[in-house]
């Protein structure tokens, strides 16, 4: 049996660690509530944009626009594929980062010229070691997602897309299903696909209201699409932020729980050791006394 002092120091160290995990748990839970609120605030805007694009597409099925250009002529091997990967800045969040990395690896395995835009320190480390091309000007953290940051990111992405430096853009992020489930997910950002905006099939004889686009369809799309991309990125950032903190919260909760059970076990051991030491001392004292009496 280990000696008392060893067990005592072990208990103390577990207790210290528990304090940290518990604090992180509470920080994450408060950050998550904020993130959830942010997400709920932007949802009307986001769904409004999505609905609007689908409405315009419905009314102008022949509309051609540079954001809808699939660039089908470029062969698979030469397509430049960009992915925005949203990871956490640090670990200690269970399988959160691992899941994202795994999904991104699947994309990297496909043919094409890949380029990564990594948000979050941890992912940047991982992919730079793996030797994939990473856009080095792209340094954003995942803490406190703001519209401003989303605008920066989407500006850079749209610019590269229009210049032909990218042919396809994906976002890899974690979507929060509910408070216990979060899935790593790939979302295609550009070029936009008509199928994404579930174009309603309407009977031919139905009257459709006519919608005028002012000043022109192109102008309106030019305004809607960047905003839409911006909104998508912002949504992804906030979702990822919320699920990161959810993952961290759960990881820290289970760490705190296991620390508690460890402390319980250790204190039983400690008490046993203490009891054994006392018993031994008593036996020694008794034996000594008896030896004295016999004299």
């Amino acid at each position: 049996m280990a000696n008392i002092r060893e067990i005592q120091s072990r208990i103390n160290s577990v207790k210290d660690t528990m304090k940290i995990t518990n604090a992180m748990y509470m920080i994450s839970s408060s950050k998550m509530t904020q993130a959830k609120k942010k997400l709920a605030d932007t949802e009307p805007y986001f769904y409004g944009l999505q609905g609007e694009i689908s409405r315009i597409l419905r009314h102008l099925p022949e509309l051609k626009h540079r954001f809808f250009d699939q660039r089908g002529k470029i062969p698979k091997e030469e397509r430049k594929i960009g992915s925005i990967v949203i990871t956490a800045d640090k670990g200690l969040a269970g399988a959160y980062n691992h899941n994202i990395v795994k999904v991104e690896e699947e994309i990297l395995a496909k043919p094409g010229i890949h380029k990564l835009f990594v948000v979050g320190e941890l992912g940047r480390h991982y992919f730079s070691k793996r030797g994939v091309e990473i856009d080095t000007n792209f340094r954003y953290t995942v803490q406190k997602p703001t519209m401003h940051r989303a605008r920066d990111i989407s500006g850079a992405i749209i610019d590269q897309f229009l210049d032909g430096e990218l042919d396809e853009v994906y976002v890899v992020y974690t979507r929060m299903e509910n408070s216990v489930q979060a899935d790593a997910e790939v979302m295609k950002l550009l070029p936009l696909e008509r199928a994404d905006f579930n174009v309603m099939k309407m009977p031919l004889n139905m009257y459709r209201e006519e919608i005028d686009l002012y000043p022109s369809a192109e102008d309106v799309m030019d305004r809607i699409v960047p905003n839409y991309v911006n909104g998508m990125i912002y949504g992804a950032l906030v979702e990822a932020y919320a699920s990161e903190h959810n993952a961290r919260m759960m990881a820290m909760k289970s760490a705190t729980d296991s620390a508690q059970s460890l402390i319980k076990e250790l204190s039983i051991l400690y008490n046993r050791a203490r009891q054994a030491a006392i018993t031994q001392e008593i036996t020694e004292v008794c034996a000594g006394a008896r030896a004295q009496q016999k004299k």
Partner: protein
Amino acid sequence: METFGLKIIASDRVFYDGRCLSLVIPAPDGEKGILPRHENMVIAIDVGIARMELEECKWTEVAVGTGFAEIVNNRVTLLVDTAERPEEIDIRRAQEQRDRAEEQMRQKQSIQEYYHTQASLARAMNRLRLAQDKKWNL
């Protein structure tokens, strides 16, 4: 008087949801007025000041960012990236934003950065234009 349904959705909140008598919005080539029973339309919106008449002869000014307005069946939906009332604008912050943008404009930058600063400058100037002459800021 006749009214129409108006909903202004900014990227961070639903700014206004209710009835409105008439609305003036900044389109790319000048202001556009919308009255009840307007034709169905989608109009692009530039950074600028929109005015809405919620009660007769009572106009409310709103600083809006880029986006668009959609008019369908006497309902108007404005989807803009920012929407602020004059009393919500922090003059000091807007001034700082303008100064920062002007400073960046003077430096050498890529075309993309240039557009970015330009947009930021436009937003700052727009905020200042709306808030500066209000009596609580004098």
